[in-house]
């Protein structure tokens, strides 16, 4: 394995609609009337946003739970 140090790994996914690379961009997500702005991978052409399994079941789940108990 070649070490790429702290650089985030290049996303494996490409946009299936336009074939473009995914880039980090601002994404609005909302839950129970709370709006959050986060940096996520998305296709800048089509607007398609990628939420990985790790994110959905990790950080995102935690935030969901804590908003539900507020």
């Amino acid at each position, binding site marked *: 394995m070649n070490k790429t140090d702290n650089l985030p790994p290049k996303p494996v996914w490409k946009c299936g609609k336009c074939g473009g690379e995914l880039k980090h961009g601002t994404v609005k997500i909302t839950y129970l009337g709370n709006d959050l702005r986060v940096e996520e991978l998305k296709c800048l052409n089509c607007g398609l946003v990628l939420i990985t399994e790790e994110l*959905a079941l990790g950080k995102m789940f935690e935030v969901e739970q804590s908003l539900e108990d507020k």
Partner: protein
Amino acid sequence: MVTHTANIKEVGAAMDQVELRRLESKCSQENPPACTAGCPIHVDVRKLMQAIQNQDWKSAASILQQKQPFPGIISRICDHPCEDVCKRKDVGATVAISNLEKFCLENHAPKIANVGAVPPKSQTVAVVGSGLRGLTTAYDLARKGYIVTLFEKSDRLGGNLWKHPEQQLPAQVITNELSVLNRPNVTIERNAGITRQDLSQLKERFDALYIGFAAQSEDALELLGENSRIDPISCTTPIAGVFAGGQLGNNSPINAVADGRRGAVSIDRYLQGASLTASRDGEGAFESNLFVNLNKIPSLPAVPMSHESGGYTGEEAVREAGRCLNCQCLECVKACKYLESYGGYPKKYLREIYNNESIVMGTRHANKMINSCTQCGLCAEVCPNDLDMGQVCLASRESMVRRGKMPPSAHDFALRDMAFSNSEQFALTRHQPGFDSSKYVFFPGCQLSGSSPEHVEKVYAYLTEQLAGGVGLMLRCCGAPAHWGGDQGQFQTSFEEMVAEWESLGKPQLIVACSTCHSIFREKLPGVVSLWELIKDMDLPVQGAGTNYGKVAVQDPCTTRYEQGIHEAVRHILLRLGCEIEELPYSKELTKCCGFGGLTAFANPGLARKIVENRIKESTADYVAYCAMCRDRFAAHGKRTLHLLDLIFADDLQNAATRPDSGFSQRHEHRARLKRTLLHRFWQTPQEKERGYRTIKIICNEEISKLMEERLILLEDVQQVIEHAEGTGRKFINPDNDNYLAYFRPARVTYWVEYQPQENGFVVLNSYSHRMEIVEEVKP
């Protein structure tokens, strides 16, 4: 502007202070054990016995010091009323508490407790007499910082203490122990007899007086004369500021100590201007309400002393302390995995639930706890005071829903499942074919239909053959998920729909196959009968040697707890089928939930797993359940379990016992297919074909199916994601392997699916979900 939000109790909360107190008073766990309550000065004997068992002599000494003013003396002469009430008495012999205390002090005597540094007070108290009463009063008040003068008529402190034989209470011990009174705020006047004439002068000199003699004793009468009427609770005499021993006699050293302590409390209150009579119930010996279940505790005789006069040896002491029952109630906690898993007991939980409700802003930490109870009612059954935590949790859930504070993720899936069952996809109401009225209506319920649709078909055919007068059919959900989830609005709507359908059939007698449906309908609709009670004496398709199954252990669903008729009917049927019945340790009114009740399996899957694992360990025999959910949950955890209907209708019982849990997706499919099949078979309706996304063929291996099940992702959710992705082209692609990843949000949950198209369908490689919504700026 005035805002009124902060301190106002939220409207619609389930519990107010009064209700909290009422419920709390039912839980006896925090009451002291009998020994401590019976000890006039409330030594924490239970803790002491633990310390001795652990040979933790430092703790042992400090436990004694906490309550005993002169431990070295008291431990040697106490008349131990605690032992009369010790619970061990009924299962062997009372724990030798006093001898154990003596052992601690004789062998592991602590250093004489040092003067606690309390802020000194300016008020002065005179104590007359230095027997145990006077000594205790002087000691207690000195520790509180009062300036105390102790008057003793002889030349040494101790009074009656000196009458004890040297070998019981050595002179050296008395001297040593009383040296705690050598402190700057205590003056000791020896050879200072006080007469009635001196009293008024003492009253002038001191702010309060304590006469340290037993009530009505010669000494007391002589000093107080016509003023010797002493109140036993407050130790007051008719003279303001003069207090005296309120108890008669000198035959109980420990009561003399308690009497002196009472006097000290009164004098402290008097000097602080506080009430002398308010809340004094806790002082002195009382009877504890702590419930201790002595059933099943083997009797153990007292540990004898090898040297009667020398007291216990260390080894004997540890063994004797080991006979202590460590008295607790915890009846419900021992019976319920849920209560056990939160590490406390109802009284504690009640406060947490109450606090959870009172939070206006901030995190409600108890939400998950409130949503984890199965509402099975076992706690109320085992609690000596019938405290039902299931009802408490339910009321709290209802209030959470009313106030919009119920976490959506807790019950959303179950409520959608219920909506599915009450939709066109499953719901159906019909008279028996060829009839335009119904004497009965069969209500199989959504879970049996989801788990074994073939049984529903067979039972319906069987009932129409056996019963005259028309057996209608109603397919739908009874509404239990909404009820369990505390959603009274949704429950009401569903129930009214159900009643309207039932009325449209002319209010026939309801025959229910599921005990949960039974529990929901029994109080609301007249004449509901369980399938089991109905068929118990009817001709069965198989009976006697027909099944030849052998021994089965019966799982009574928790919703039948008090349904004796159902318990008996089920056993009657099993015997007719030729089964040998084993009763589980927890059965009938003591039965345990499978972990599905109360929607625990959704709100707290980890706990639900523990519940079921614990339940299936109760016997090695195959289980027989008569609730489809119990059956499937046991099967899912590897327990061979039959449904009672298997024994009556299944062809291959070995297969039936190991049939896996149906899973959520399959239950939906089963229900939808059951409706189509029944319509076709009984009402000759042409078989409808699946339409729309339901026709998309999904291929997934066992691992993925299991993952989807755990993550509450249904086949139809996956189908919708793929339909949407393929229809719009909105998906991601992995150029390395040409896998697709796409998402879709049919309602409140966003589902993601990684998949790979194949000739005849789509292979699912992964799936996950989240509830947060991505707000995309969709570009064309």
